[in-house]
């Protein structure tokens, strides 16, 4: 019988085929889906995040690991849902109004999924009202806002204000990121957190959920 350590290593090395095989093998041996997730897949992805922060891994390695993790997650997800196991939290993520760049958003989404979050991708050019409506519809815990340009990052402020105006601001946490965005800007517009990259976004999301 393989160990969870081996599954973690396969996530880290991005071995999609082996992750799928091992996940299936654990299921066949009666392991609980939540245990496979918590002991194998997520810890593996956590190491990937640390390696990314330490500049041992770059985006190619991180994405390869994320795809490997998804191979296992695809097997577990229906079982987790059937047994009513909840994700760590639900995150709605999108690029703000006027901005259609999606590379950063997609990387953050991949890492959040790898961190055990359920991610709902709102797409690009999402208006403040759309964010508010989607957050209500999906019952998310966190809203992630992305912007690449100084000309569009101001839409982050509008989005925060839209949640305020709607009266639903205190029901969700808002985190922001993107090339020109900073911690200071997050504070200025009343967001709850800023993450400088995809790996940091996972840590910030965990922190925000812990702070709820």
């Amino acid at each position: 019988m393989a160990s969870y350590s081996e599954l973690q290593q396969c996530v880290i090395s991005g071995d999609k085929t082996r992750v799928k095989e091992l996940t299936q093998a654990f299921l066949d041996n009666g392991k609980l889906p939540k245990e496979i997730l918590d002991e194998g897949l997520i810890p593996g992805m956590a190491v990937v995040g640390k390696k990314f922060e330490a500049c041992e891994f770059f985006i190619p390695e991180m994405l390869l690991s994320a795809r490997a993790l998804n191979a296992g997650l695809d097997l577990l997800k229906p079982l987790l849902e059937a047994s009513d196991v909840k994700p760590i939290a639900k995150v709605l993520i999108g690029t703000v109004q006027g901005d259609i760049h999606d590379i950063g958003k997609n990387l953050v989404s991949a890492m959040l999924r790898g961190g055990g979050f359920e991610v709902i991708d709102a797409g690009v050019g999402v208006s403040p009202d759309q964010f508010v409506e989607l957050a209500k519809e999906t019952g998310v815990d966190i809203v992630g806002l992305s912007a690449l340009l100084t000309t569009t990052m101001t839409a982050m402020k509008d989005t925060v204000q839209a949640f305020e105006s709607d009266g639903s601001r205190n029901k969700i946490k808002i985190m922001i990121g993107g090339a020109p965005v900073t911690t200071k800007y997050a504070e200025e517009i009343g967001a709850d957190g800023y993450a400088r990259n995809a790996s940091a976004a996972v840590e910030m999301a965990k922190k925000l959920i812990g702070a709820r």
Partner: protein
Amino acid sequence: MTREENYFKAIRFDYPEWIPISVRIMPATWAKYREALEEIVLQHPVIFGDYEKGNIDFDGFEGTYREGEHTDAWGCVWKNVSPGLEGVVVKCPLTRREDVHTFQPPNEHTGLPHGFMFMRLYYLRGFEELMIDFAEEPPELQILIDKVLGYNLNELDLLLEENPALIVLGDDLGNQDSLPIHPQKWIKYLKPCYARLFAKCHQKGSLVYLHSDGHILEIIPALIECGVDVLNPQVGANGIDNLARIAKGKIAIDLDLDRQHFPFWTLSQIEEHIHEAVEKLSLPQGGLLLIAEVAPDVPLKSIAAICEYLEKYKSSI
């Protein structure tokens, strides 16, 4: 000494009289401020040369700066929702790895536009698919690189027929705070491309100017080895002290002043920034140039201040 003579003295470390300065005005910025911006431009011939009233069509957006969707010669579909700013590739023609084998670069000549090499790879494959290629290193990665490079070498031949003193190239190689790929993979796959392109320029007697957005510190030594003569890095993404440590005196730097802060800085912060750049990077023999790009969210008074402070500090060599 003319502006051009001084410019080449600066990039050749041949004791320029002043630090060459320039301001790049985005088309959307012209469209927003129009005649008021033109007045500023006319007040600064040292920066804008012999610009004359009416030289610019305020609403004349071209190529990927136009609103809507268009497909370029490579089959990449661009979308622009902010006319006057650069568009985004939203449909890539080579999303399946196997398509690389039958892919042919365009028959038409498109020159070497911004994003000619590394960015073109992900315009064609899609960013995530290209990153997976760099992770898995299948043969198709090198095949695609060779095809794009081959096209670029031919285009460069055409450009060099005019015997330009300087070939200006742009390709965003960095993310905000890191390279997208490991520096060793950059050296393995991409350095040979730039080395061949730059060598061709030098063989014809042309100097090479390379713009790159993003954090590129780890590959600046490799770019120097490739033969780049003038590098145009973003100060914000690389850090002024880092650039001084790695590149000062070794290569001419056309410092891309911190456009990510221009919309928000006070006038005194703008002055402090320009002063610091000159203080930390200028040398009597040259090697420093300054460029400020202004987007439409930079207040008009800040644009005027940028021009004034550039002129003020250009003689602080």
